[in-house]
Structures are given as C-alpha cells and as structure tokens.
C-alpha cells in the first residue's frame, strides 16, 4: 500500500481528485490516455508546467511498459493518479516482464564525445528519476508496480543521475 499518506477521499477537508485507467498497452492507447488526462479534472487544476512534467513522466513510464515489459506480447496497463493540494501521486501496474534484476534502471545520462555516438534512447528512466520522488518498483507475483510522486521542482536534477541504486 504505497499511498497510505495520500489524503483519504472521504476524509473531507479539501479537494481530492483520483483517476484510475485500465487500457491496452499500446503506444496509441498511451497517447490517448495522456491527451485525455491533460484536460481531465485530476490534472486540470495544477499549473500548466506541472501538467507538462506529469505528461513526460507518465509517457516514459508507460511507453517503457509497452516497449519492454510487454515486448512481443500484449497486455494491459493500469494507471492511478491521486491529486490533492497540487501534489500528484502515481501508481502504474502491468503484468509483463519484470524489470531486469527486479530493480529500476539506473537512468544515467551517457557522456559521449562525437555527435555520431550520441544515443537515440535510454533517456526514459533518467527523465522519470529526475521528475519524480519516492520512486519505487515492486513485483507481486506477476504484477509490476511502479509508484512515485511527481516532482516538478528540478533543483535535484543533477543528484538524480548519481543517487541511485
């Protein structure tokens, strides 16, 4: 139960917004979910820039599931967002392959000298780590669960490349 601290919806005392989506793990469905989330009630009340951050992190996490967890097969993604006071907690699950070694990819940026050596991928986990906090991965039986809180403040951007498992 990763979100014991998120405000209970029935506790009263303010605005709480929750959305839960379950949809097929395809790039097209991920795009559709993101587009609708951006204008929906859960993210509509946070600042425009934070909505952009939310879209980056959610896109990276869910596209990785399509690309890696369900590589060569099909399945579903569930996405749950809790928003209260502008803070957005996220839970994403799938039933595909486990993360390599059942730990989160390091997400370090590569350093290269020549333009021709620049990587065309591998930015995903770097972006997720940079723009989130309390990032956790767990595998329960066949379920992969990723939980985190959106972190629109990027002052920790440099740390994110080093302080990782």
């Amino acid at each position, binding site marked *: 139960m990763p979100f014991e601290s998120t405000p209970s919806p029935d506790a009263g005392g303010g605005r709480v917004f929750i959305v839960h989506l379950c949809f097929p793990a395809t*790039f*097209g469905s*991920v*795009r559709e979910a*993101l587009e609708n989330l951006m204008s929906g009630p859960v993210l509509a009340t946070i600042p*425009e*820039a934070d909505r*952009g*951050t939310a*879209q*980056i992190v959610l*896109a*990276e996490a869910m*596209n990785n599931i*399509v*690309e890696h967890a369900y590589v060569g097969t099909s399945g579903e993604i569930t996405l749950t967002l809790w928003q209260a006071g502008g803070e957005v907690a996220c839970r994403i699950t799938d039933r595909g392959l486990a993360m390599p070694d059942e730990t989160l990819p390091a997400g370090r*940026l590569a350093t290269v000298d020549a*333009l*021709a050596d*620049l*990587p*065309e*991928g591998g*930015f*995903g986990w*770097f*972006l997720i780590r*940079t*723009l989130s906090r309390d990032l956790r991965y767990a595998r329960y039986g066949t379920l992969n669960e990723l939980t985190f809180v959106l972190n629109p403040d*990027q002052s920790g*951007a440099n740390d994110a490349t080093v302080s990782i498992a």
Partner: protein
Amino acid sequence: MKVNSETMGDMLVVRVEEPRIDAAGAIQFKERMREVTVDAAPRVVLDLSCVNFLDSSGLGAVVAVMKLLLPGRKLELAGLTPTVEKVFRLTRMDSVFKIHPAVPGVLRDAV
C-alpha cells in the same frame, strides 16, 4: 505525420505540423524527415513551434535525424514550447543542438 518544408536561402526549414512527437509517431517522424531532407541544404532548421509534447522516443528520433544529416549538414531547432524545451534541457541535448527561439529570418539574421 504532417511536416511542411521550405527552402530559405541556405536553410531548409521543416515545420512539424503535429501537436506531438511521441512513441506512437517517432518512426513516422524519422521517415518523413529522411524524405524531406534527401537533397537538403547544408543547414536544416526544425521548427517545433506547433509541437507541445515530445517524449524520449521523439527526442531519440530528433537525434537520429541529426545523425542522418552527418557528415556535412547541420540540424538546428527552433520554436521549442515549454514542455519540449524541458525535455531537451534535462537531457542536456540543449548543448548538442543550436536552438533558436524562432526560425531565424533569412535576410535579417542568417547566422
């Protein structure tokens, strides 16, 4: 993937007329860019002012296009919207590409 390309002096300006370059469209983007840059001028400016979202697949596709133009031709960027700018900045790709606030004027400031 709708793109509009126009030669302006020594530049080929390619304007992406889509709101997103994302995992669902990155391959088509790369294909279209390959087509329109076949006989390109030495300087290609990618106008991203219509694009309000780009994810790491889109970023990878932009890097791939830059490499396609090597050696000899340069890819520059223009008109990054806030979320797109953030992706370039966080991944340090803003130090790899020359980034213009808007498409540079051909007569005024063709740097």
